[in-house]
């Protein structure tokens, strides 16, 4: 199956700092989705990327799909305490998600 690694696994930032988390695959991906899971919560869909080199923005979040469709990134600008949680990338495949290892984000006020 597809193996997707995310780096870093943990990120602790001060409120207001920027950060980027990366999602790397050994194989070419068709699509990739990003989910956020707050502590004690369930995964919540953020975005889906389909096209090579695609960039999508949601307020302070910028998602990018690599040109070769083997990697993706999430950049958060001016982090807030509400950004705390684990961010998972998940390549889509027939009828299932294969979650990446996740990046756990902590934000200190």
């Amino acid at each position, binding site marked *: 199956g597809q193996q997707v690694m995310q780096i870093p696994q943990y990120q602790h930032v001060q409120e207001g700092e920027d950060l980027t988390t990366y999602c790397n695959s050994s194989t070419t991906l068709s699509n990739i989705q990003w989910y956020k899971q707050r502590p004690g919560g*369930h995964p919540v869909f953020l975005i889906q990327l389909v096209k090579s080199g695609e960039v999508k923005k949601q307020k302070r979040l910028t998602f990018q799909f690599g040109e070769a469709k083997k990697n993706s990134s999430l950049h958060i600008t001016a982090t807030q305490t509400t950004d705390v949680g684990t961010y998972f990338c998940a390549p889509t495949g*027939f009828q299932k998600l294969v979650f990446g290892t996740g990046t756990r984000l902590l934000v200190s006020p």
Partner: protein
Amino acid sequence: AAGVIQSPRHLIKEKRETATLKCYPIPRHDTVYWYQQGPGQDPQFLISFYEKMQSDKGSIPDRFSAQQFSDYHSELNMSSLELGDSALYFCASSLEGGDYEQYFGPGTRLTVT
């Protein structure tokens, strides 16, 4: 808006007992997925159903079985429970196909003692 409903939210069972988890998808969603998430782990896909037929299978133990009913709700049956089965079990639903976003329920926390 209606969300995915899971019941029960918490379940405590002893080793070798059985458990049944229920999932009610968002109205008009015809695909249901089950995931298992251990402490500090990412969700692992177990099984999925589309139009009441099993559509994909992941790392689901043979002790577990699942089905989707005519009203699209799904049940995950777990027998001969082991300590290692203690986890958070999520159900998710979507429209047809693996390329649509999945909406997750709040999860059932199963504790096996």
